[in-house]
């Protein structure tokens, strides 16, 4: 149907093709289209340019434009796959893919490893963990004695740093997460399963789905 195709084309002009994105991720075409609705609302909130910048990301996450947070920054950087300082629709979908309930455990573990390896050395060092811990305490305005912080770090590294070299490598991390599955809780967004109901897309896509399968 000529009408349908041109409407769909218009909708996604300038952005990656939903069919292609669906084929490369756990999302169906309708789900990608629903994600597009979400993407549109986030990416137009400060600058209407079809891209999510840092401010817009912060706004979406914290409902505040000026909220600086090292973890959100890290997530933003990881979503900004092409290192352009902005997240485009393709980046958005591919990055969220890891958070899908059906994404592999391995991918989720890999993501968290890279997440916490803030300085990208290939290891999660004790100093990094201390920095993150302090940042969290600051964020929650929680107070813990320095001694307590050291005890927490000691305990964590005792458990995770098997070869006791002061840092956690990929393999150690993998084992650690398998023993502590709650650490992956942040890596699954059940919302992604019902995305088409939360963000109904106004592009009729039943025909597209049939073609895609």
């Amino acid at each position, binding site marked *: 149907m000529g009408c349908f195709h041109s409407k769909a084309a218009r909708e996604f002009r300038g952005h990656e093709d939903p069919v292609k994105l669906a084929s490369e991720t756990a999302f169906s075409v309708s789900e990608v289209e629903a994600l597009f609705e979400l993407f549109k609302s986030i990416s137009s909130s400060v600058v209407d340019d079809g891209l999510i910048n840092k401010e817009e990301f912060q706004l979406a996450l914290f409902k505040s434009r000026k909220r600086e947070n090292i973890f959100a920054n890290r*997530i933003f950087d990881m979503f900004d796959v092409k290192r352009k300082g902005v997240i485009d629709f393709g980046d958005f979908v591919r990055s969220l893919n890891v958070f899908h309930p059906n994404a592999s455990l391995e991918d989720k573990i890999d993501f968290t490893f890279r997440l916490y390896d803030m300085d990208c050395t290939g290891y999660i060092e004790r100093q990094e963990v201390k920095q993150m811990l302090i940042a969290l305490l600051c964020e929650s305005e*929680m107070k813990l004695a320095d001694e307590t912080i050291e005890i927490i770090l000691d305990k964590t590294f005792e458990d995770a740093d098997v070869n006791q070299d002061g840092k956690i490598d990929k393999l150690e991390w993998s084992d650690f997460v398998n023993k502590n599955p709650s650490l992956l809780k942040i890596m699954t967004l059940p919302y992604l399963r019902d995305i088409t109901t939360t963000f109904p897309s106004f592009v009729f896509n039943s025909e597209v789905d049939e073609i895609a399968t």
Partner: protein
Amino acid sequence: MFRGSPAPKRVTPQEVFKDEWFKKDYKPPVFEEKDYSNMDDVDAVFKDSGEHLVAEKKEEQPAAMNAFEIISMSRGLNLENLFDPKQEFKRETRITLRGGANEIIEKTEEAAKPLGFDTWYITWLENVKAGRKEYLNVAKEAASRPNDVVVDIDAADADNELAAAEYVDGIFRFSENAEVALLPWLDNLSVS
């Protein structure tokens, strides 16, 4: 009356079990014995080797909170907030703890009573105050809540900051599950 004849012997339990009458329709109880053959804790005491050190285990969470569990609590790592445009009661699961553990507990007690947390909650608090290190299973009252949730809380020292933090975190996970906005309660604790 029984002089001269052998005193009637009482039947022994074993004999009863063997008797046909007893066996009829009898299903012997099956006790599922968990395999507690892990001797690590015993070894830890009697052997000096570090290998047998055992971490105290909670039902759901291993050992005391590790750094990453704490770090995971950051709002910056909870992307579900991206999906909630209105963010009504899903908005905030972080709280600000001000003051020492005892103060927190007192404030929580004040705030919680009117919400009907009475029975199970106050019991927990009383145990904490009594310094009882018991592993309490806290059952939620189903009355005004739609879901039944069981929260495992380790009633540690009342002075233990970490324990208070963990407890409150437990309340949060609990509130998430029960889909109950405990926000008014949070406000009393200085929500951030």
